């Protein structure tokens, strides 16, 4: 092989190498592109599935509240909540609500709260019967299960469903829900939850403080709840009840405080009935409730929190949508609500009566909804109570805050849900 031949061979080899390298690059590039596309497709499919199976929602409300007697006002981002739900399969769903109250949480200061309002798994057992397990708001009253601020009038939740029936009352347990096929339109709900703690009842707040709300709950005391709900036309009727123990102490501790422990020891019994209806432009809702704490005397002796033996409350509200006949989704509802509640309807022998806890409210206002899930609200609240028990006034006259049996409040607020 002469020099020329060697040069031709070298050029051929170089050319071959270049061509091979080019092919290799091309094949690698194509393979890479192909692999990337397949990976992207798989990734996109997984993402699409996740998006299809996962829902995000939420609600929030803010309010400006003006006290006409004291000429003071408060502005508050009352709550902002995020929902997350995920459908694992047609039979299993996860649901959660995470809430921040009062806009901010700061150590060492009052107000503000970060908490789960609900977090549960829902299993389809058979037909339309579902078993739910986790942190839940049992079906008690109107507001506990449905507290979206765009679904009620007024900047405040009804006072009866805040002070007598705790607002967003939740505990850990299991609950069954479903239809009663033998009675078309009727649903049932039945559950068992951890009970309350009577040690955490506070004077003038009913059983509100007793709920553990999912945080390190004593669970040797239990509660059972049940509700029947009936739909006819555009009307819903409901009755529900709660019965649960309030002492989760061991026997020795409970005996030393002369309290009954065990699953249903020192019980709270609560019952309510309610109705919601719409007739054309008119909407109506009403609720009545009664709470019995038979062993209130023992609770007061142990914890000195002036727990009442009975509480009661009722309210009725009527609304009229003046834009009902407009073709748009916009609505403007004029409403009025009357409420009555007594947080010391019956007291044990060692209880102290306070007329301040016998309260009547008259609320009137407007709810403007430019869209279904956006509300702008304004209302006037007139509150009238019984007289304050002078024995409960600790401060002498100069330092004493004047108590007015009658007072009024202006509120404006906004709310959303999605």
């Amino acid at each position, binding site marked *: 092989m002469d020099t020329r031949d060697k040069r031709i061979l070298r050029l051929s080899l170089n050319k071959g190498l270049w061509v091979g390298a080019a092919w290799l690059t091309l094949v690698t590039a194509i393979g890479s592109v192909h692999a990337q596309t397949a990976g992207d497709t798989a990734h996109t499919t997984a993402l699409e599935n996740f998006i299809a199976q996962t*829902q995000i*929602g939420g*609600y929030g409300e803010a309010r400006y509240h003006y006290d006409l007697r004291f000429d003071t006002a408060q502005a508050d981002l009352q709550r902002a909540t995020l*929902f997350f*739900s995920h*459908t694992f399969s*047609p*039979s299993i*769903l996860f*649901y959660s609500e995470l809430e921040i109250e009062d806009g901010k949480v700061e150590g060492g200061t009052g107000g503000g709260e970060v908490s789960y309002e609900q977090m549960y798994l829902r299993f*389809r057992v058979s*037909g*339309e019967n*579902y078993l739910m397990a986790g942190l839940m708001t049992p*079906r008690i009253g109107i507001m506990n*299960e*449905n507290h*979206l601020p*765009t*679904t009620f009038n007024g900047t405040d939740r009804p006072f009866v469903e805040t002070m007598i029936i705790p607002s967003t009352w939740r505990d850990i347990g299991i609950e069954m*829900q*479903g*239809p009663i*096929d033998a*009675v*078309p*339109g*009727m*649903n049932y709900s039945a559950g068992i939850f951890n009970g309350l703690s009577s040690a955490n009842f506070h004077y003038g707040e009913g059983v509100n403080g007793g709920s553990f709300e999912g945080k390190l709950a004593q669970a040797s005391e239990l509660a059972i709840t049940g509700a*029947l*709900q*009936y*739909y*006819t*036309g*555009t009307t*819903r*009727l409901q*009755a529900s*009840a709660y019965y649960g123990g309030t002492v989760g102490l061991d026997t020795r501790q409970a005996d030393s405080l002369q309290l009954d422990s065990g699953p249903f020891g020192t019980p709270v019994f609560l*019952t309510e*009935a309610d109705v*919601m209806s*719409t007739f054309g432009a008119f909407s109506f809702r009403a609720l009545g409730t009664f709470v019995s704490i038979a062993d209130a005397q023992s609770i007061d002796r142990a914890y000195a929190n002036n727990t009442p033996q009975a509480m009661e409350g009722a309210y009725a509200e009527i609304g009229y949508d003046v834009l009902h006949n407009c073709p748009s989704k916009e609505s403007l509802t004029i409403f009025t609500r009357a409420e009555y509640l007594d947080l010391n309807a019956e007291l044990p022998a060692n209880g102290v009566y306070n007329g301040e806890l016998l309260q009547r409210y008259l609320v009137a206002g407007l709810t403007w909804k430019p869209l*279904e*899930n956006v509300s702008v609200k304004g209302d006037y609240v007139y509150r009238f109570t019984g007289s304050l028990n002078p024995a409960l006034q600790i401060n002498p006259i100069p330092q004493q805050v004047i108590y007015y049996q009658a007072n009024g409040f202006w509120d404006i607020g906004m709310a959303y*849900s*999605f």
Partner: protein
Amino acid sequence: MALAMGTVLDFTGCSSVHSIEIEAEGGVLRVPIAEFGTSNAIVLRTKAEPFDLLAVRYPDGTVGALLMECTHQNTPLTATESGLFCPAHGSAFDLHGHATRGPAVKPLKTFPATLQNGILEITLS
């Protein structure tokens, strides 16, 4: 409470949207129209769908079928002759599946439905 319950039971004749269990054949539910009785709607429970279906007879003689799953948070709905209602957050839908009260805004899933020779046929997806 006993009084309230008595009142509830007195209403049972007013809203007779009863339910039946039914199996799909080849992806199609076949319901004899006689099953409706005097009602304008009937709840169909089938293993082929994760939620009940509501079959509806409209006043103009046409028919329809709706999935009874709330489009807000996947809650099963309750049906009356006036519409469908969500016990969780209060959403309401008319018998065509349109949301009439929030928080739900999206309409219910519908299925093709035809009426032939007295048989309502619903094609499942």
